[in-house]
């Protein structure tokens, strides 16, 4: 067998071995991989970056623990960025299995930045029927959420004093693992014209590009990769740091990048072998 034929008909166990070694090695020596940041993720970051202290950003978090790996990093990075910039946050959750998780994120980050519930952020909690809840919030946050997650009436929270509805928030970022996104697009943006960006899981990403094109959403963070892009920007902006273990999505990205490179290399090797062995004949 010639060298090129051997290249073409490599025993597949070599492929397995290389993949295995690459994954294990990259898992142990985690290193930073420069990442191409998509404009749709950058526009979300840039928008949050443009907010000035005291302005309010709303985050709708609609996902269950199953898709945490992809979406949690987004929630953390955005929350950290906002608190570091003294931007106020209004959060709500429209997924039945999510409320505790959101609380965990916001409480943890608030403690890091010494932010006070009710003054620097408000967590509205969970309500069923996303469509009705979003519609009602467009009228007044107090209709679906007379009290916040901790049972305090909204009217007694200083941050909510001048807040009525979506008109009082600079934008809404919806981080979602399911159909919730559609309601935000159709109702919050479609009906109340709220400025909206979304963060979704990898499999959902392709479905939402048309909304980006039509301008219904101004930004899109797509899956693990989008989360890593956001973390990359936030790290460069000094909002999160690798040393403190605040990068989640970025941690597994090197494994993804190296395995993708290896697979593409194998395809190239196979084709070079195919070409050369054919030419010889």
């Amino acid at each position, binding site marked *: 067998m010639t060298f090129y034929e051997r290249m073409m008909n490599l025993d597949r166990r070599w492929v397995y071995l290389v993949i295995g070694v690459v994954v294990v090695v990259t898992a142990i020596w985690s290193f930073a991989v420069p990442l191409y940041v998509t404009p749709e993720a950058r526009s979300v970051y840039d928008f949050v970056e443009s907010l000035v202290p005291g302005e309010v950003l709303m985050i709708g978090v609609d996902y269950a623990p199953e898709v945490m790996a992809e979406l949690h990093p987004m929630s953390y990075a955005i929350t950290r960025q906002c608190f570091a910039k003294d931007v106020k946050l209004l959060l709500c959750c429209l997924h039945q299995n999510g409320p505790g998780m959101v609380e965990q994120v916001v409480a943890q980050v608030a403690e890091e930045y010494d932010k006070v519930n009710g003054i620097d952020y408000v967590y509205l909690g969970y309500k069923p029927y996303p469509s009705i809840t979003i519609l009602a919030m467009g009228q007044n946050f107090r209709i679906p959420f007379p009290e916040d997650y901790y049972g305090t009436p909204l009217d007694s929270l200083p941050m909510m004093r001048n807040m009525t509805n979506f008109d009082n928030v600079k934008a809404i970022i919806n981080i979602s693992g399911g159909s919730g996104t559609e309601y935000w697009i159709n109702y919050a943006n479609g009906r109340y014209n709220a400025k909206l960006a979304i963060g979704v899981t990898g499999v959902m990403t392709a479905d939402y590009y048309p909304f980006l094109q039509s301008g219904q959403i101004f930004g899109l963070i797509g899956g693990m990769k989008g989360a890593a892009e956001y973390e990359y920007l936030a790290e460069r902006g000094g909002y999160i740091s690798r040393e403190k273990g605040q990068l989640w999505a970025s941690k597994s990205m090197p494994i993804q990048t190296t395995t993708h490179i*290896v697979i593409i290399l*194998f395809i190239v090797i*196979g084709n070079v072998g195919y070409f050369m062995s054919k030419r010889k004949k």
Partner: protein
Amino acid sequence: MRRTLPIAVVAGVGFFMLIQYFIPREEFETLYEWALDWTMVIGCFAMALGLYSLTNMMVTKVRRKAEGWGYSLVALVGLFVMVFVGIVPHYQDSLKYGTLFMDIFEYIYIPIQAAMFSLLAFYIASAAYRAFRVRTVLATILLVSAIIIMLRLIPLGPLSAVNQWLVNFILTVPNMAAKRAFWLGVGLGATATALKIMLGIERGYMGRD
């Protein structure tokens, strides 16, 4: 009788399921829900057949001391331990977290399932290596499209922007069109198959004698 009765049942039940879809009345809804329940009950009885078929095969191997009969014994032990701890010690509570039944499931089935699933990372690489050759036009198209999508995770400097544009284009235009056409075809094909079954044109699956 042996052939016509079953075919009549297929046609009758099929026709009912077809028309009930358009009748929102409660009576029809209830019948529909019953039909679903009944299929589940039939599945339970059938499970006995399934378990019989599995144990029969394994027991035969063990009894004949066929090659690898020891492994068949492992399967038999696994099966009977599971049924035993599922029924005997905690009647009705076996499915709760923390019982031996669930422990076995969690520490034996789940890890193996996850490991089998993750074998796909290796297989997807070797399948790509073997299949993506520029042998034919179709294979080349498959290869180019897959590589463009995979490149989105690799830093390419300024070319990344071009690649990202291509990725978006592929996902929203040809990929979307391919899915739509695929589903349209599947919809018509599945309907035709269902019609053939209900009209009794295809009946080879229903025995002959």
